[in-house]
């Protein structure tokens, strides 16, 4: 009984490692079409970018840097990939994270705040040196 339990727990820990083995940045291919095409309800809110910037400083800057240009092994968000992504794709990423690559899920943030963050992320200029 105890051995079975141990094996179950071991499997539970190991399976996620085996199931998801993809390159960093391929999350965008996994976004369902329904989420991809979602429009941003904060798109016309004039304060959304400012609110999104504050949210970014509170939740994201410790990894991505105050200027969103990355810190250490954490990626910059001044990239053409972020710039090209639709609002729906970015909101999907914030909600689900990319757990296997260290990006936490921010489903704990209310959805409207994730949309405010998306507005801020899209306001970042892509750095010409950052191709991805």
């Amino acid at each position, binding site marked *: 009984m105890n051995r079975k339990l141990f094996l179950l*727990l071991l499997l*539970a*820990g190991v*399976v*996620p490692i085996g*199931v*998801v083995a993809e390159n960093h940045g391929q999350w965008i291919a*996994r976004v369902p079409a329904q989420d991809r095409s979602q429009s941003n309800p904060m798109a016309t809110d004039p*304060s*959304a970018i*400012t*609110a*999104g910037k*504050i*949210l970014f400083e*509170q*939740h994201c*800057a*410790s*990894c991505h840097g105050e200027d969103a240009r*990355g*810190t*250490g*092994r*954490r*990626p*910059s968000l001044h*990239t053409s990939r972020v710039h090209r992504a639709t609002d729906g794709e970015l909101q999907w990423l914030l*909600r*689900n*994270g*990319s*757990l*296997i*690559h*260290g*990006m*936490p*899920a*921010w*489903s*704990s*943030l*209310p*959805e*409207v*705040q994730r949309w*405010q963050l998306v507005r801020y992320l899209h306001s970042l200029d892509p750095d010409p040196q*950052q*191709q*991805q």
Partner: protein
Amino acid sequence: MKKIALLALILAVPRLWSQEVPYFVTYSHHMEEPGSLELESKTAMDKPDAGNQFFGNSVEFEYGTTAWWTSELYLDATSTVGESTVFGGFRLENRVRPLLQEHWINPVLYVEFEDINEADKSILEVVGHDGKSDFLNNTSETRKVKQRELELKLIFSSDAKGWNYSENVIFEKNLNNSPWEFGYAFALSRPLGLKASARECSFCRQNFSAGAELYGGLGDRYTPGLRNTSQYLSPVVGWQIPNGPRLSFATSFGLNDYSLAHIYRVGLAYEVGQVGSLFHRKGTRP
């Protein structure tokens, strides 16, 4: 000097503000951010009718090992008025998210090893036939009774329209040849404001959350059910001070004669971002 150095280290690393649910007993599927360390103190206090007032404290060190795996160490201490203050023991736990995307309900597997004694009154869970009589014996006696326990939890949790709904099923076994004991915890909570303010503010509605927890024992392997178990209903409120600590308060009301009448709870948490990066070699990655 060491304390000053530790304080300087904590203040030097980036602070992180994670949106946490204000629960004391129930776990949600929200994991600690990878590389971040949360320090939290949870205190439970009460004065049983036929016993002495107690303060059960648990200090929690929660570390995001990865984005899908969180590890925690708890150190417990209990102070009982007219008796003594004793170290209650330690707990080591790990939580793993087996599914790597959000679903309408999100499971988390939880495994904990506890090495505590019967004097511990931090009340981090209620299982089996735990009841108010557990709080009446003198600390000098109960501290001698060791409890080495394995605790498993199935955590289910959902986020919808700003609400978090969490359900925990608890299985606990004292490794000293005791039967499995069962318990549960349900909770829901919501921030008072969903939209973030465009100015930094401590008292904005988005920084406050409120909810409730319902938890209790479900008997043991030989006597399962609600008979001779304690049950509690607990309104909870939380206040996240931007770039500062998180405070939470609750009053648990005992729902039957087997339960303590009230348990007052206070929580204080402080999150330190990217502690893990201090131990990693710096590199760049686009």
